[in-house]
């Protein structure tokens, strides 16, 4: 497996001259391999968005290094590295520059000097990938939240990135919009093998990832497959997150003295376990 991204012992502080202020990121290391979906979760202020900004070179760590596609990131190669990282931010309204959907998707291509014919083809292709090709000439501000984020993803895809970073990209969307975006990301991964790094505190979103990195107070608290992370149970809640619905319900039922065996990773599984242990005659 090729390493897409490696972070090595990253330390970052927003207040370098004030040693009493805690570092925002404290000695964090991890690797993302090609084709993987990795989710970084953690409470507000746990350092997850700082990591996103370090990955795309908006911030430079005081110590440690970032390697992207085998290249050690520095101020000289930063711009070329950025073209390979597609980033989608939290608020869809803050990232539109074009008057129409297609202008917006073309913006980054124009900036990178992509020839016109190639540009048109790429705009159409990436909008088709997020199922927004019907909206070429629409004004971005009149789209729904889910549609806006899909256009933002298309804008990122048009540059043919090796890594798509979603920085809380679904947290401002309604449930339907969130579902639309997650369905698209999942489909892109299945179809193209895109590598995804999503930063989120929605555990229902994190459960879709191959691997979860759990941040607490700037440190990496745990790392593993979703089932391993969710097995932490109460610790997740104590650190400001929540359990997925089925696991939370199972825990509350057991506390009420209801017998339950097995794991409860989904609603279906919990209903079945409830039935077998308590209602089946």
């Amino acid at each position, binding site marked *: 497996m090729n390493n897409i991204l490696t972070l090595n012992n990253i330390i970052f502080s927003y207040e370098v001259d004030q040693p009493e202020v805690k570092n925002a990121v404290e000695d964090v290391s991890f690797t993302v391999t090609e084709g993987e979906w990795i989710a970084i979760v*953690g*409470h*507000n*202020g746990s350092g997850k968005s700082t990591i996103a900004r370090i990955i795309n070179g908006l911030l430079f760590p005081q110590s440690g290094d970032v390697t992207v596609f085998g290249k050690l990131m520095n101020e000289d190669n930063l711009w070329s590295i950025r073209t390979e990282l597609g980033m989608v931010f*939290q608020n869809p309204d803050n990232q539109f520059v074009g008057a129409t959907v297609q202008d917006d998707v073309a913006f980054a291509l124009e900036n990178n000097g992509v020839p016109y014919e190639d540009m048109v083809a790429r705009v159409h292709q990436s909008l088709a990938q997020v199922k927004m090709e019907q909206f070429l000439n629409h004004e971005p501000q009149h789209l*729904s*939240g*889910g549609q806006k984020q899909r256009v933002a993803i298309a804008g990122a895809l048009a540059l043919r990135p090796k890594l798509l970073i979603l920085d*809380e990209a679904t*947290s*401002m*969307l*309604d*449930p*339907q*919009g969130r579902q639309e975006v997650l369905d698209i990301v999942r489909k892109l991964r299945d179809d193209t093998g895109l590598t995804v790094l999503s930063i989120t*505190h929605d*555990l229902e979103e994190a459960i879709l990832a191959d691997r979860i990195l759990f941040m607490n107070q700037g440190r990496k608290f745990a790392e593993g497959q979703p089932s391993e992370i969710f097995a932490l149970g109460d610790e997740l*809640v104590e650190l*400001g*997150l*929540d359990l997925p*619905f*089925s696991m*939370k*319900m199972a825990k*509350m*039922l057991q506390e*009420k*003295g*209801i017998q339950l065996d097995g794991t409860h990773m989904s*609603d*279906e599984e*919990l*209903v*079945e376990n*409830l*039935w077998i242990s*308590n*209602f089946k*005659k």
Partner: protein
Amino acid sequence: MDIELQKVSYSYAKGTPFEKAALFGVDLMIESGKYHAIIGHTGSGKSTVLQHLNALLKPSEGIVKIGDEMIEAGKKNKKLRQVRQHIGIVFQFPEHQLFEETVLKDIAFGPMNFGVSEEEAYARAHEVIKTVGLDDSILQKSPFDLSGGQMRRVAIAGVLAMKPDVIVLDEPTAGLDPRGRHNIMELFSKLQKDHNLTMILVTHSMEDAARYADDLTIMHDGKSVLRGMPREIFKDVDKLAQYRLKVPHVVAFQMRLEQRLGSKLAKLCLTEEDLVDEIARAAKKVREES
């Protein structure tokens, strides 16, 4: 103070080539002292309704009644200032509206703007900062040195310092982590009960609406399409689906369980705690019968 919308229609940029109709004959009744949720997917018109609740927008057609004041299409009302004083709006990402040098000044700005003396405004700041669960000492800090969660609490304190009778919440937990979300929602619920406030929650979270609201209004395509108590509205999955909405997760789970059991539980549960109790009761019954 009751708030009522009667057949309210609204168009943005009316009379220009960019005119865009956003509301069509919306009826809405919010009773004094109740917790009312307005639900709809993005673009359903709920934010436009919100701006009518304290006359930031005036209806293109129809009437908005806020207490004894009437705001009618095409008529001037000179008492809007008083009306607005009674209605506090917590906008999405309220922390973006902080601007003063200190938290104290920021909280006092609203009341002073409405003619409250500096002394009184500062006294209120000391009071409300505790209400939102922060320490007095934070009042002397710059609002921009606070964490995101603290900033949001300060912004909410600024609304409370106006001593509003009605508080309108526009997606107040957007962007917060689960613990922050829970704490803020519990704070509003307690405020509403302790001070008998009218609380209006504009949200797309079915879970919050189910847990906290006395009444719901569903918005869809600029119309108010459904109104009732949560227990009534959330039992109709098909109807909600027409408006591109889903029942709360806990309700969906109960329905799935009932299907497996082949029978219904005694009531529709709107919170996890309720459902756990109901399942425990049903399981006990099965044990006793066998």
